């Protein structure tokens, strides 16, 4: 179970950074398409994760992340693994 506060934080950070309507973000929505991400936006995503969630991401972390739900689980798992601050 993922903490609702963490999901809110992720949604807010993504909506603000990628300038999308937060209403468009839902667990089943496709992450890349909803945020209209390309390879350069991925640079922003890497920096955003590191600054907001306190861990370093590597290329393989993004393999298999299709929906926001996948993304929530990825962030949650890495925070729990590393004991990084939420």
């Amino acid at each position, binding site marked *: 179970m993922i903490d609702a506060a963490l999901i809110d934080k992720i949604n807010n950070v993504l909506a603000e950074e990628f300038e999308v309507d937060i209403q468009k973000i839902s667990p089943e929505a496709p992450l890349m398409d909803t945020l209209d991400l*390309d*390879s*350069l936006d991925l*640079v*922003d995503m*890497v*920096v955003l994760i590191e600054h907001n969630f306190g861990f370093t*991401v590597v*290329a393989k972390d993004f393999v298999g992340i299709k929906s926001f739900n996948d993304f929530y689980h990825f962030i949650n798992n890495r925070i729990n693994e590393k004991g990084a601050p939420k």
Partner: protein
Amino acid sequence: MKKEPQNEWSGKSRGGASGYLIFVFIIRRAGLGAAYALLSLVALYFIPFAPRATASVWQFSRHIIKKGKFASALFVYRNFLNLGISLIDKTAASAGLDKKFTFEFDEPANVSEILAGNSGAVIIGAHFGNWEVGAPYFGKYGKQMRVVMMDAEYQSIKRVLQAQNRLDAFRPIPITDDSFSHIFEIRDSLERGEYVAMQGDRLTPNGKSREVLFMGKPALFPMGPFVLAARFGYPVIFYFAVRTGLRKYRFHFSLYEPQMRQSSVRQETDILNAYTAYLERVVAQSPEQWYNFYKFWL
């Protein structure tokens, strides 16, 4: 930022590895003078047989630097000749003949300090002059330089390096169409204190770009190098090596210092603006060393 750039470069450079290896052979067997002599004929050959490149240089001469028709015809030949000389010289320099060259440095103290320090640095160059001829110079600081390039370009260079048994001398960061791994490689290299070199003047397929007034006319520049430089937070150095005479080069360096006066200007735009202003100055001094052989201006 714009997508679907109109002056997109294909990701491949003209001139095969075989032709390059012929010059390597001549430099080794007959010396630099013989290679230059052969080049004077090869440069002529390219005028009719590389029509797209010839047209782009002609347009540059006529419409950007405003030369007349006769002067532009000479300019096209000199431009191709200069490109060939830069290829020969970088080959010679990387093969250990760098003592045959004279290098002058326009390196401000703030740049020397960064290059000599422990921090990684982003070095942004251009398809102008001969930046590779200075690669051995960066080695004096005892750091690895990683060069970010299109995978198609790297595959061509790889054939040459393999033939010369020098594959380990060059550690590129290739950009492939179907992977984002170069982003992480760039970040990791910078964290290890390495230099990461990128070209700031050439679009990549499907890459974002921004229109800039460059040498008086609008042109598209890629945003990739500038976004990477802005986000990772390492020092950014603009670097160009200009040929100033026979076997003589001058290295120009400039450390990017933020000029953002309006909070609405994003840092990548500020870096891009500083880069194009500096590039414009050095290109204006040596326009015959500008090597973007495609429709660069809109």
